[in-house]
């Protein structure tokens, strides 16, 4: 029994080393999109999205992509850390990192560990401290949710700024195109006796 658990856990740990964690994913990214994208670098054996339980906010998706072997996973992680990889949209790149054990919802129990649980009553000596920890945990949760909110705001700000830049650029592009297409350029060229060479 023990050795069976061991074996199961070892297999799981091996799986972790083969897995890439991705976030900053657009909601448009689906399992098949991920598979197509990552099959360029190796072969994908499994894809799993990580559900987000805590906040009702619409935040980017995160996923675990399991590759055929640890080497492929490593390769992908180092490449994507150095280059900017786009999925289902741009210019916000996806972010990758090696997967860690805690990311897997279905992870098996670590052999040799056993979590005990018990109810503490009000008169238990530990009750006060436990209560404090609970309160602290709640405060931490609030802090995190505040931080997340700020981050989302920052992201939105950046996105808006970039959208503006893009708008201006495309306007300029349109202007140039128009100048070329409506004959203004050739008129000017004639006026100043210059030659236009077709690109």
């Amino acid at each position: 029994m023990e050795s069976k658990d061991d074996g199961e856990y070892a297999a799981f740990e091996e799986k972790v080393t083969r897995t890439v964690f991705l976030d900053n994913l657009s909601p448009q990214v689906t399992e098949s999109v991920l598979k197509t994208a990552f099959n360029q670098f190796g072969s994908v054996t499994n894809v799993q999205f990580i559900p987000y339980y805590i906040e009702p906010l619409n935040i980017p998706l995160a996923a675990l992509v399991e590759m055929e072997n640890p080497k492929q996973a490593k390769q992908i992680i180092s490449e994507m850390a150095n280059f900017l990889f786009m999925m289902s949209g741009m210019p916000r790149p996806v972010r990758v990192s090696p997967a860690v054990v805690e990311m897997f919802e279905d992870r098996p129990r670590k052999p040799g560990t056993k979590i005990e649980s018990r109810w503490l009553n009000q008169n238990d000596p530990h009750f006060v401290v436990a209560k404090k920890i609970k309160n602290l945990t709640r405060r931490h949760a609030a802090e995190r949710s505040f931080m997340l909110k700020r981050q989302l705001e920052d992201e939105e700000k950046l996105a808006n700024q970039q959208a503006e830049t893009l708008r201006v650029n495309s306007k300029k592009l349109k202007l140039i195109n128009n100048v070329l297409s409506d004959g203004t350029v050739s008129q000017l060229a004639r006026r100043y006796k210059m030659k236009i060479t077709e690109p």
Partner: protein
Amino acid sequence: MCSSVACNVLPSSASTTDQGYTTMSHLMEAKKEDDIEFRWGCNKRIGGPNKDIQFFDSFTYDGVEYYVYDCVYMWRGNEAEPDIGKLVKMWETASHKKRVNIVWFFRPIEVRNWLEDVELLENEIFLASGEGKGLLNHNPLEAICGKCNVVCISKDKRNPLASGEDIRMADYVFYRTFDVTNCRLSERFPDRIAGKEVENFFNRRKYQKLITQTEVKENFKERAGKIISSSKAEGVAAATTVRDVDPKRSSIPEKERKIAVASSPNTMIRKTGGSIEGTEARKISCDQWVDRGKVDRSEDHSSAGVSDVRPPKKRKLQSSPDDNAKFPDPAQKLPDPKGHLLDAKDSVFEKRGLPKGVSFGETTGKVLDKRASELVQKKSVKTESQIVEVTQRPATSRDAAEFALSKLNKICLMLGGVRPVVGRKGTPRNPGKLSKFVGHLVIEKNRNQRQREEVKNAVSTSHYSQANTIEYEMATEWRALQEKSNLWWDALNEKQAEEIITLRRQLKIRRNA
């Protein structure tokens, strides 16, 4: 102010024929107010200091007939859940204000501060007793928003035993009183509550549910109902059961309506909904709180989810047959109580042993599984003799969640000796996908055919960004932001972990000491 003798004796009305009864109420129709249908039932007597108050034994409000000692849901201000109470008196004042006297039931959650380690049934409530604040109130009649099926399962000799079927159909059960004088829970029932014989608060004698279609000729309404009276004397109120089958509503099983009420339109804290289907169904079923003046009930409402606005008093649950069609049969969906609570667990509990955790701890989940099932097992063992399958309805799963939460809050569930479990209500997840993603830009229109083609391709495939593009430049900005966010999360994690560890040390020191 009102005499307390007034309400007890009903036989006079019970012996009235349907015909007589309707004509009488027909006369009363002149008093109808608003758009909401209202009629007083049997006029009983006139009282009050100036003889200007009329007491009644029953009334019809929005198609439902209420009798004295019926249990009802009441809206109080902006509360998320309706209160439950028993009608003990109803009257009309000289200025034609309609009032009711209500003796309250308490939900366990409302009096949790006074409940030590009390074992609770899933849908248990407590009858108020004693004297003082919280026992009873005068309320405007319009605050009533529906009947509530409450069954007494006390073994008190004075209480007619309820059948298993009754209990299964019940929205709530009670067998204990909560004394508002000294805030104590008791299984004993005093002889009088709020000046009424306690028998009135127990189940009705010869409790039967007969629905006989009796055609009553009336101008605009067809009502099927029957008044059953038992001739049990002793000054005990005659057991009177009136089932009112409104033709418009008859397509909706009463049970479902009640479930919808009980699950209550609370968007911000949707707790249960273990399975997505469950949540959806609930969303559909409890969505419509519509001003009843405006909407024809039999029409198909747009089922636009749950409105965020808390329903004010005068609104009432509306269920359209269409909505109910989508509502899954509760009994089929949820095969056993245990599985049921476990389902609810998914969304209720949240592991926060160490805030660093990204996902839910498997171990925690399992322990909770076990714990939750233990909770249920313990309960069902204790109550098996009295109750059969009380936990089978969605309406109660909400209470189950509530119960588990309050237990988690009140005392501590420790994991591995150092990690207390923190419970929180689940948040509704948006099943619909977002079409827009912050940080992904689209060029609105581009007349240049060739370029548009390129953009299209660029969007639809995954690729590495090329260094000579504007995309690359912008992506770099994003990468910078991502790195920054990594830094601040790391800093926060570190700080929080430190705080937790400091506290945990105290725990260990105490243990060693």
